[in-house]
């Protein structure tokens, strides 16, 4: 299987890391609020695509950008990064969780740069009947059980020593997340704005997602102008791509025009 090639670029004065694999039409993936695990589970998407996973400022191997304190700041960051990567033609865009929120705003404000859109358990919508968990409130030792549902995956995530380096890295990432969404993990305006999304859209969700409940999938689908397809996965939690290879297969078939 192909591997990621990692490179650094400087966007608006801040060094960020970009994972890339494969060749073909560009497919950009906006990750969620953690980059420590890497993204090997996405490599099947590099089949026939140039898969690009930019690491958000404040996460993983990218430097901090303290000026970023709204999701829209990420959209501006990515508009610039797209320019620098020479992504002139519309790309396929996939976003997971926080990355789904960024991707949806990117589709709203930079719609001409998006060909097809896949949102995996996106954050950002206020759904009072099925609210998203507040990640900041979850005790660190309980976090894995919120992120994944499959017992084997959970066991793999909870073994091994948690080092000081890992704790500091996690604190840095959750600080970056707090800058953007401590006050509230949704944007009340998103409800109105989502109807601006007209690109063909796929929505994926783990049915056992404890961070953003699967019931929110219908709320997203009802708001987008593009009448999205919705696929849910039984036995799968929030880290939908980690837990089932079915998720990348579904995205691949959607991007290739399948239903």
């Amino acid at each position, binding site marked *: 299987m192909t591997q990621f090639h990692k490179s650094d670029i400087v966007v608006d004065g801040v060094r960020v890391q970009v994972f890339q694999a494969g060749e073909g039409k560009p497919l950009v993936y906006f990750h969620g609020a953690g980059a420590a695990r890497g993204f090997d589970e996405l490599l099947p998407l590099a089949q026939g695509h140039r898969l690009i996973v930019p690491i958000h400022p404040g996460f993983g191997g990218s430097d901090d950008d303290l000026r970023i304190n709204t999701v829209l700041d990420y959209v501006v960051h990515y508009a610039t990064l797209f320019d620098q990567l020479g992504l002139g033609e519309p790309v396929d865009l996939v976003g997971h969780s926080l990355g789904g929120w960024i991707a949806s705003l990117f589709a709203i404000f930079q719609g001409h740069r998006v060909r097809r859109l896949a949102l995996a358990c996106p954050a950002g919508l206020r759904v009072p009947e099925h609210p998203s968990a507040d990640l900041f409130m979850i005790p660190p030792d309980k976090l894995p059980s919120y992120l994944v549902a499959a017992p084997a995956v959970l066991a793999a995530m909870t073994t091994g020593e948690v080092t000081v380096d890992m704790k500091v890295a996690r604190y840095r990432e959750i600080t970056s997340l*707090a800058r953007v969404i401590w006050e509230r993990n949704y944007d009340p305006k998103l409800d109105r704005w989502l109807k601006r999304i007209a690109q063909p859209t796929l929505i994926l969700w783990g049915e056992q997602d404890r961070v953003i409940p699967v019931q929110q999938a219908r709320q997203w689908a009802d708001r987008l102008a593009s009448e999205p397809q919705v696929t849910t996965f039984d036995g799968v939690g929030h880290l939908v791509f980690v837990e089932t290879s079915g998720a990348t297969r579904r995205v691949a078939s959607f991007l290739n025009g399948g239903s």
Partner: protein
Amino acid sequence: MSVLDRLQFYLMHFMPYPDVVPDRPQGQWVDIPNTHFDPEKGHKLYKDYLDELVLGDALGYDALVVNEHHSTFYSLMPSCSIIAGALIARTRQARICVFGTPITLTYPHRLAEEYAMLDVMSGGRLECAFPLGTGMEYWVNPLNPSHARERFRESMDVLMQAWTQPGPTRFDGEFYHYKYLNPFPLPYQKPHPKIYVVGSGTEDTVQYAAEKGFGYSQVFTPIAAQLKSFENYRATAAKHGHTPDSESIIISAIPYVAETEAKAIEEGRDHILFYFKNLLRTSDQMNSPPGYLPADRLRRRLEAGVFQSSEITWEALTSVYRTVLGTPDQVAERIAFWCEQAQSSRIVVHLHTGDMPHWKAVKNITLFAEEVIPRLRRKVSPKLKAAE
């Protein structure tokens, strides 16, 4: 001249609610069920606690100190200005110290107004100290911990502009915009009451206080770490053209005075341990919300090992905190040593601690005032005399 020649005694109260809920690893903060609060008990506690501070005024303490915490049995003072207002009406001499409302938890112009009210009402008896607020406050107030330090500094800029520039003025910041910054009344003292910054030793807070020419006061942290902060403070202040003196730094201590050392230990020890084991106890998660600590400070804290106040022993406690239980002579000796060691002439004493009953607090406050303070006021050691 020795710092001992101009010692000032600050009688401080935390006003705890002592009926703690057992078996809570995360302690008595943030998510402590408030259904445990009994208003009749609370009423009695406010009365006793205010009486203890008012007694301090009558006994000649230089200052009475109150502070502020939220959603915790640690403190019955979610607004220290209200307690200060009650104290002003019942006291004559002592300075009233609000040490204080975390300015980030309120509108800065509103705090400028409230503190100015207190200063005018008291005829210029107010002193202010500005804390960032513990990490725990950020879970129970609608405030983002990841930019707490930036907001703190801007808030202080608003307050200082409000107090020192003739109003109305305009303010355009990252967090606040004021069309007419024009607080009324203004402080009684000119240009403004004495200002301290309260910190836990984080370097950039120490430097901030020193750069701005504010005083500095450090919360309960090991003595060695405090002394290092004070050194850093003095060096930075000097670099910025300020001349810190023995009043620029406030230290704190927990003394208990009795007829004999054995009696002091018997009467005082368990209440002090109660404070550290039960009231100060919290969880790492609550104590360090995201971004509240700079990452390098979190790393140092993790590498040093987690401080588990629930497991603290008396021996460990007395070796790192300023705790002394004994006769007036013994207590006076320790206090003199600590003040000289830190080159500070201002010492906060916690004479009610933890679940201490009213009678013991009254005894401790009285003995300290009548037996310890006079010993210290007289105390100029032969060695120091010779040096002069």
